[in-house]
């Protein structure tokens, strides 16, 4: 069951912020929204939180057409969605008064849920904070309080706009552990983040956003099988080459970059990009007997030490390949700039996309 369906969402301020965006979110899903600055992340989240109306498009929350319903229905939908904003916001008063805001406007008896509030605060490392003045809290404490403030209402959909951006490590850790704990409760979560690694760690699916959803899928797919050049560049896929692909009869395709012909086990015809993960490329001093269909001779053009690894850039004809090797192998092979080497990689390691 989809808890949220966005169709054809467009929103323009002075420039097009969201362009014909489509997104379907299953109940219980855990989606990370990643994109460069200005991609429309915050606008999209505000539209999902019903704080702003899109210029065009449809929003369906469970069964309700949210852009076309009564004020009361819209308010009730809002009560099922909880959002934590990027910049912490507090009401005047104590932490307790802040966190009990939701229950208060829902007409719940404050005393009945005092214990629940204290429990929630505890889970976020804020025990004993109930009577503190909310505006005296640090940034991290305020965001944790903000999360408690929405969680107390048991939202069906939780929307987080960069919840740990610029926060101290303790606050980040507390917030992340609470988010992970929500998986059991079947809360649907949409989280915008700048941090690719955090996205990978906390989310089951990632969507790359740049005014529209460019790719959506499990992190492994998005990070190693980008669907287009933008996603590839954005997630930091290395070794991207451009060329023309043709499918051969053996279920392989050949991609001609102009200077090289590369074999790939993926089949996409025409003008394409290919990417090969550095970890999938092996390096040797001599030509070796290998099952890898791709083998090229080149020379080392750049060497960069990166902790326990060495990044080696190899030029092959007019193209460049980035390869990682251990410091030991590097030293054993006695490589320097200009050293002639052979690189190998399998056809299955070559990802082809538009």
């Amino acid at each position, binding site marked *: 069951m989809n808890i949220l369906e966005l169709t054809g969402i467009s929103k323009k301020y002075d420039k097009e912020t969201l362009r014909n965006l489509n997104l379907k979110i299953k109940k219980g899903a855990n989606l990370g929204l990643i994109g460069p600055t200005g991609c429309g992340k915050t606008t999209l989240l505000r539209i999902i939180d019903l*704080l702003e109306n899109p210029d065009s498009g449809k929003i369906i929350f469970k069964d309700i057409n949210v852009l076309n319903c009564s004020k009361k229905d819209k308010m*009730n939908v*809002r009560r099922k969605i909880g959002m934590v*904003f990027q910049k912490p*916001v507090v*009401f005047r008063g104590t932490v307790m008064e802040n966190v009990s805001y*939701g229950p208060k406007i*829902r007409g719940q008896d404050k005393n009945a849920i005092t214990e629940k509030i204290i429990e929630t605060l505890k889970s976020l490392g804020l025990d004993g904070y109930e009577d503190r003045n909310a505006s005296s809290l640090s940034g991290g404490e305020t965001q944790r309080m903000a999360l408690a403030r929405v969680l107390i*209402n048991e939202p069906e959909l939780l929307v987080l706009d960069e919840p740990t951006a610029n926060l101290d490590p303790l606050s980040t850790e507390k917030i992340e552990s609470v988010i992970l704990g929500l998986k059991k409760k079947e809360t649907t979560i949409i989280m915008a983040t700048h941090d690719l690694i955090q996205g990978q760690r906390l989310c089951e699916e990632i969507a790359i956003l740049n005014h529209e959803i460019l790719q959506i899928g499990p992190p492994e797919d998005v990070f190693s099988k980008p669907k287009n050049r933008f996603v590839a560049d954005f997630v930091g896929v290395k070794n991207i080459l451009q060329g023309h692909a043709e499918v051969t009869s053996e279920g392989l395709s050949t991609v001609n970059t102009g200077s090289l012909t590369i074999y790939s086990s993926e089949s996409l015809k025409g003008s394409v990009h290919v990417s090969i993960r550095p970890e999938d490329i092996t390096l040797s001093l001599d030509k070796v007997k290998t099952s890898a269909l791709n083998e090229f001779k080149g020379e080392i053009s750049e060497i960069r030490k990166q902790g326990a690894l060495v990044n080696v850039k190899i030029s092959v004809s007019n193209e460049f390949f980035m390869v990682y090797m251990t410091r030991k192998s590097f030293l054993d092979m006695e490589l320097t700039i200009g050293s002639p080497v052979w690189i190998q990689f399998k056809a299955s390691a070559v990802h082809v996309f538009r």
Partner: protein
Amino acid sequence: MNEIFNGILQAINLILTLNPEVVEITTRTLFISLSATFIGAIISIPIGGLINFKKFRGKRSLINLIQTLYSLPTVLVGLFVFLLLSQSGIFGDLRLLFTPTGMIIGQIILIMPILIGFTITALKSVGNDIIDLSISMGASEFQAIYTIMREAKYAIMAAVILGFGRAISEVGVAIMIGGNIRGFTRVITTTISLETSKGNLEISIALGIILLGIALIINLLLNQIQEH
């Protein structure tokens, strides 16, 4: 100089011995101005809220008009209310001219622009992020407005105190609507102007000291509120 010095000494005497006339005038002044402020606030704060939250054509112009009326000359308001309450006026039959009640009405009309205008400013200064938060949390329109008013609580209080300050220190309305009738409509400001011109400095100075004292208390209250 001697006369003034003597006047001050006698004024202090009048205050310390709780001279009946001084007490009577002070009590009436506080009653009239506090009533005007209280009733004025009850009417003006909701109006300020309505103007601030609703979108309508001419909103900008209306707010400009209200702000222009802040420093309306008190004698003009006095004249306006006089015309309304006089025998030939619309409310002439109510016989409110030269009564404390008439003075209260006059002061209400005088301070309403300040009360409404400053309420609007106070509400406008509540950040959009707070409004977003209330709505995001599922507050109804009414609940959101209440929340914003609570956030602007101190700024609105300051507006009310300012209104009281203007009401209690004005002469124009009090003298034209009240008529400065001894034992009935005499207030601090009107008494000071009358008695000084008659040469009775002691009572003028005494009432002046009291009025200054009230102004000081108002200032202290405002400072307290500023801290929030």
